């Protein structure tokens, strides 16, 4: 961080760039988002409560949050392994693997969605394998989790990689020489160093997962009875079905937005704390 100087601004363009940034942000992001808030105020508080506590809406929130949470936990485990493997080991195809980690960012969500849905359906390759073990993947919550693992994995790997690269191997060596077991070293030496980054990646994957639409709508089946509707699907349904219900969509979107902001806030807090810890 720069030293706090109360000097005159030498560089030109402060007013101009500041003005443009704030204006563009307001017009393109802030005003549209604020419109959702205004729109949902058109209904009374009682109506609002009644709408967001309807069983299908509550169920959708529960499904979105639990599935995104489970997927993010899975991503933390495998993301840690992948980041570790990519930073610490040399093996053929490493650069290819490193580059392809970001595939879920680059691939359109609808493409990922239809592909995963076919792969894990009972006629697909993995779906038929899982069927033999008695797991129904596509058109169930398992499917939702699979899709969310797919879209979330790059967040965790990319959050961990730079931290792992900076972590000196001498820490582990010291711990080993002092007689610690490998697991103990991991738990007490490596993991604490990685925790902030891991939490940040977890938060990003979770935020993405809760609001995810394209990649889950095909694999989830969107059945109200089986509780496989995501919040984003319920919102979209209100915009597309015969009776368009903008107020309802706005109210649910508002709650989803609040959850996202809360997550964003937590992620930022974690990063601030992490920054303090590494500065010393």
């Amino acid at each position: 961080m720069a030293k706090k100087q109360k000097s005159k601004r030498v560089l030109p363009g402060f007013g101009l760039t500041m003005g443009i940034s704030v204006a563009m942000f307001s017009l393109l992001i802030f005003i549209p988002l604020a419109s959702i808030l205004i729109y949902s105020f058109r209904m009374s508080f009682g109506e609002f409560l009644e709408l967001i506590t309807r069983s299908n809406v509550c169920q959708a929130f529960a499904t979105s949050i639990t599935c995104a949470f489970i997927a993010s936990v899975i991503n933390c485990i495998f993301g840690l392994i992948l980041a570790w493997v990519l930073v610490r080991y040399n093996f053929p195809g490493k650069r290819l693997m490193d580059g392809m980690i970001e595939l879920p960012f680059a691939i359109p969500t609808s493409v990922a969605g239809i592909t995963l849905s076919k792969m894990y359906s009972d006629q697909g390759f993995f779906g038929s394998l899982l069927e033999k073990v008695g797991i129904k993947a596509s058109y169930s919550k398992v499917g939702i989790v699979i899709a969310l693992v797919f879209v979330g994995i790059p967040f965790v790997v990319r959050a961990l990689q730079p931290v792992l690269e900076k972590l000196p191997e001498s820490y582990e060596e010291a711990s080993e020489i002092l007689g610690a077991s490998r697991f103990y070293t991991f738990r007490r030496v490596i993991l604490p160093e990685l925790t902030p980054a891991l939490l940040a990646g977890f938060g990003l994957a979770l935020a993405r997962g809760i609001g995810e639409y394209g990649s889950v709508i095909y694999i989830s089946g969107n059945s109200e009875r089986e509780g496989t509707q995501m919040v984003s699907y319920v919102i979209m349904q209100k915009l597309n079905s015969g009776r368009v219900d903008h107020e309802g969509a706005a109210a649910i979107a508002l709650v989803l937005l609040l959850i996202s902001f809360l997550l964003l806030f937590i992620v930022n807090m974690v990063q601030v704390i992490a920054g303090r810890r590494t500065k010393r």
Partner: protein
Amino acid sequence: MKKEIVVKEKASNQKEGKRGTKPHGLVPCLLLGVGVLFFLIMLVFPLAEVIYRSLKEGLEVYGAAIMAENTLSALKVTLIATIIAVLVNTFFGLCASWCLTKFDFRGKNILSTLIDIPFSVSPVIAGLAYLMVFGRMGWATPYVEKINEFLGTDIALVFSVPGVVLATIFVTFPFVSRELIPVMQAQGTAEEEAAVMLGAKGSTVFRKVTFPHIKWALLYGIILCAARAFGEFGAVYAVSKARGKTFTLPLEVDALYMAGSAESITQAFAVSSLLVLLSIIILVLKQIVEYRGKREL
């Protein structure tokens, strides 16, 4: 001879700050195995599945699906939206990162947090937000109508190509600024200040002093922005209803898939393969830019 090479390799590894050893022992091999297996199942197999399903009914069906009128129109809309989104967000990214990294002011942290909002907002909400402004019941619709009456035009900002562009801009908004800010932060302001003291104009300072430092990060941000822009689905889906007119490629994939017949599903995968090709090109470009950028540091 061999030893020399090994030594050289080690030295170069150290120089580039890379580490990495051949995995030996049970635990490293197990970790590598699990990592590679997860990678194959989650990332490589889906790609193979797209290719396999798109070619299932032969090249003719594949060609027909790709050359279909709806697909070509969708390709056009996708390209328009991507190009405009990249231009707008690059412009924003440059302005925002200049004002956030070269100056100190109150509310700086708040502004930089706010910019990242589109990252954590569901794409469906992005589409919905524009509907709330410009849609049938939106508060800005009367004004847009007045402007249209005044100018004698027929501009619609949702359910139209401009609506698709707006939704795409929303979801890709912070991509460029996010790549630029850390680089410009690390570079500091000393060089620019020196240039200004020596009498350089603002534009010269940016062109000759700042730009050489940030060009790779800028390119990287543009690539990420383009990748997200051409693939956006949820946000665009909310504001685009006319197939063959305002559909983008991801929406065309959805329409074909939802049609449900075996043939149209194959067509959906054929169009998907086009998008997969685009994403692979993007990833290769990204790797090249990342590599060149690191080498120049």
